């Protein structure tokens, strides 16, 4: 029987400071970059017009740019979409713009005339066209934010109910970490934040939670089993014991996300990227964020011994205080 990591005994928790460094190195520059430059939201969120064109002859983004410039559309973004015959043209609205449908229709008409002028009639088709008003986009951003927030609350309550409140806090914070690193990843990759990407982020949240809970379940069990061990030891033991499962499940999941990434086409690719990264960050955070946070909480607010949670604090041995040694009497 093949068995990976059957009797693994790595000191995961001991390496946590190194792990913090790694995640900070990924997360912090990305977040600063996001704060400075913002995320590349899709027009679903910003409002605007998207025209996907498919040309008969291969062309380049530069040629399309030139054609649009001549047609008077200077603020368009052009992106190659898979092959050299497919391009996506986006015209975003500034968040304050009051735009009606006619303006969006004008945009699509402008794209049409500009490309016809450059490439000739019948030389391209429009397989996809989207126009979103600014109000719809704003609402959507708000709704996405609320959905993520509420899902946090719900898991916190569920974990507090099934485990202990501190487990819920640790799992939720680990999940927050996943969202931040994923956002940084999205920024590095310059992926477009569309509805589907938001769905991917929420799926990463679910996946990471899932993973954290598998380890916490083992922690819960081991806390009862090994009453004498401290929490760091129990965390290490639990992570090592669940390691074969982690390797296998992450393996099968990675297999599917890679299949999506490579084969499922351009529309799904951002989703697949986010999911692939999410599996790594989810695994990482279950081990290096959720566990250590639990440990930190335990240090700060030691739990009741009756719940079996012991911290790496000075052993609470009840020793009767020694009577102070009698002061040497100095007698004159």
């Amino acid at each position: 029987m093949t068995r990976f990591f059957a009797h693994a005994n790595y000191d995961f928790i001991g390496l946590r400071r190194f792990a913090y460094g790694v995640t900070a190195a990924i997360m912090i520059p990305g977040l600063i970059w996001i704060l400075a430059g913002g995320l590349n939201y899709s027009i679903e969120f910003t409002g605007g017009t998207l025209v996907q064109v498919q040309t008969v002859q291969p062309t380049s983004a530069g040629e399309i740019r030139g054609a649009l410039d001549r047609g008077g559309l200077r603020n368009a973004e052009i992106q190659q979409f898979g092959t050299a015959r497919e391009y996506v043209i986006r015209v975003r609205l500034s968040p304050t713009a009051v735009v009606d449908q006619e303006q969006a229709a004008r945009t699509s008409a402008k794209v049409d005339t500009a490309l016809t002028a450059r490439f000739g009639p019948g030389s391209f088709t429009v397989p996809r066209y989207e126009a979103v008003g600014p109000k719809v986009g704003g609402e959507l951003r708000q709704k996405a934010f609320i959905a993520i927030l509420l899902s946090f609350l719900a898991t916190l309550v569920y974990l507090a109910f099934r485990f202990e409140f501190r487990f819920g806090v640790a799992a939720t914070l680990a999940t927050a970490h996943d969202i931040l690193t994923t956002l940084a990843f999205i920024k590095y990759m310059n992926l477009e934040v569309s509805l589907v990407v938001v769905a991917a982020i929420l799926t990463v949240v679910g996946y990471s939670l899932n993973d954290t809970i598998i380890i916490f379940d083992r922690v819960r069990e081991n806390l009862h089993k090994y009453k004498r061990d401290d929490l760091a030891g129990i965390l290490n033991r639990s992570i090592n014991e669940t390691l074969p499962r982690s390797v296998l499940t992450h393996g099968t999941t990675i297999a599917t996300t890679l299949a999506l990434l490579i084969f499922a086409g351009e529309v799904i690719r951002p989703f697949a990227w986010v999911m692939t990264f999410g599996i790594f960050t989810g695994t990482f955070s279950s081990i290096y964020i959720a566990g250590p946070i639990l440990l930190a909480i335990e240090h700060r607010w030691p739990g009741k011994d009756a719940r079996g949670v012991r911290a790496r604090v000075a052993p609470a041995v009840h020793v009767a205080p020694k009577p102070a040694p009698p002061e040497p009497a100095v007698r004159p």
Partner: protein
Amino acid sequence: MLDSIRARLIVIGILIAICAFSLWPRNVTVRTRGADGRMRDTTERRMPLKQGLDLQGGIHLGLELDQSRGKVADPADAIDRALKVIRTRIDEFGVAEPLVQKLGTSRIIVELPGLKDPARAKAIVQRSAFLEFEMTDKEELFRRALPAMDRALTAAGVTERSIGQAVADTTRGAAAPAPAPASAVEQILGSPKDTGAARARGRDTTRAAAKRDTTPQDTLGALGQGPLSPLLFQGQMVGEFMVPEEKVTIVEAMLARPEVQRLVPRGIIIRWAAEPVSRGARAYHPMYALVERPIITGEYLVDARAELDPITNQAVVNFTLSRRGGRIFERETGKHIQDHMAIVLDQLVQSQPPVIRSQISTRGQIELGSASLQDAQDLALVLKAGALPAPLQIVEERTVGPSLGRDSIHDATIAAVIGVLLVVFIMIAYYRLAGVLAVAALMLYVLFTVGGLAGLSATLTLPGVAGFVLSVGIAVDANVLIFERIREELALGKSVRLSIDAGYKMAMNAIVDSNVSTILTAAFLFQFGTGPVKGFAITLILGIIASMVTAIYVTRTFYMIYLERRPGLQTLSI
């Protein structure tokens, strides 16, 4: 009881049967455009899995009230009116499964799968509604012209069969010609006099929810009174004709012929009812011969509301006209006491024309007899829709070409097959026999998830397919957890049987807790998402539930069978 192998196999068998049943190709009612351009219900045999707009291509429109040219007084009410109007026009889009729904309180979503012309869709949606009150043809001008029409049709060599054939040839799955059994109609509708109707139909009719009797039963020759007349039955009032639902296209085709058009009396117009009615086991579509000049139009209407009459406790619609409208209406109703007045919205007659009891000026009441308050509210909405325009602006528009959808399906299918094969390979390579059991359970997982999607009539979207592929990777997790536990127990030196028992038992907590929290996240995703994302969330939720059932219950059953066959088993291939 549920723990014996037999009972478990029965439960699994039932689950398989339910899913297989929900996926079995069945007759689905679809609205398709006939050769004559008319939308009609036809049945199609196919797998009941709906594809989202992103897969089959089509147009998605998001509409809100346009308040840029003056505020709309009661926005919530205006949205309801607009919704009513769009629903009335639903057939004009000419697509099989249009979706018109209210989103929240202020938005209307229109989804038109397969439609390629956004400009037309937008024009239909934004056109303002037109309401007219028209008197029915009380002098029976139309009915008296019927014999002439029949003669003209016969002279032109037109029979019901020839027209029906022409319609059937071009309309896929059109209902077979089936004249109404006259006796059933006689009883309920009065004697089947040879009455008829003519001229062009109203622009379109709304979705017919009625049942259809497709018994092919050709009694045309037996009646022998011309091609058109036998298809029309006298309704409850002058100028109302009942047409068997499956004959509507034929009647329309006959009425549209130039030799019939010429014979329609001057000043008479033919309008179809918005909805079919059922009489006994059959569905009829009422057709009305109306006086073309409306006695009043919607612009004079100020308000309409549904109320319960305090004395009779019956649903009524009270309406108010403007002062000028009141003067016109007073004059007209004075001339038409005891006549029937049709309420026509966008050329379709809404509800049965009520009779005018007395002269009405600015305030009137429509009694609906035994109709429910719901019906009254519906009629009030119709009146208001024609009276108070609810201008709509398009706040969101998405068009996906069918080729893009096809490409997406093609790519996603390849990704799905490769992803599943990889998972199968990993599981069998690592767990051997146990892996084979898990893969068998995975196949059931696929069946349960897809069956569940069909059973809930969820829509399959591209992110949904991606979510499904992803869920296959995650679905084996429960099995992995269990198998790892079993291995741990075996490593402790326990017997095979005990290890399996313990493995399932110990893994249970982790499986339930982790899956419940994932479902919670997916549920919020469902709540927040629109179209594609909703499809993703529902796939994920179904997938998790199905994976719990297959990983825990189904593989356990496999093991029970396996152990029973080999009682003295010492080693386990895991």
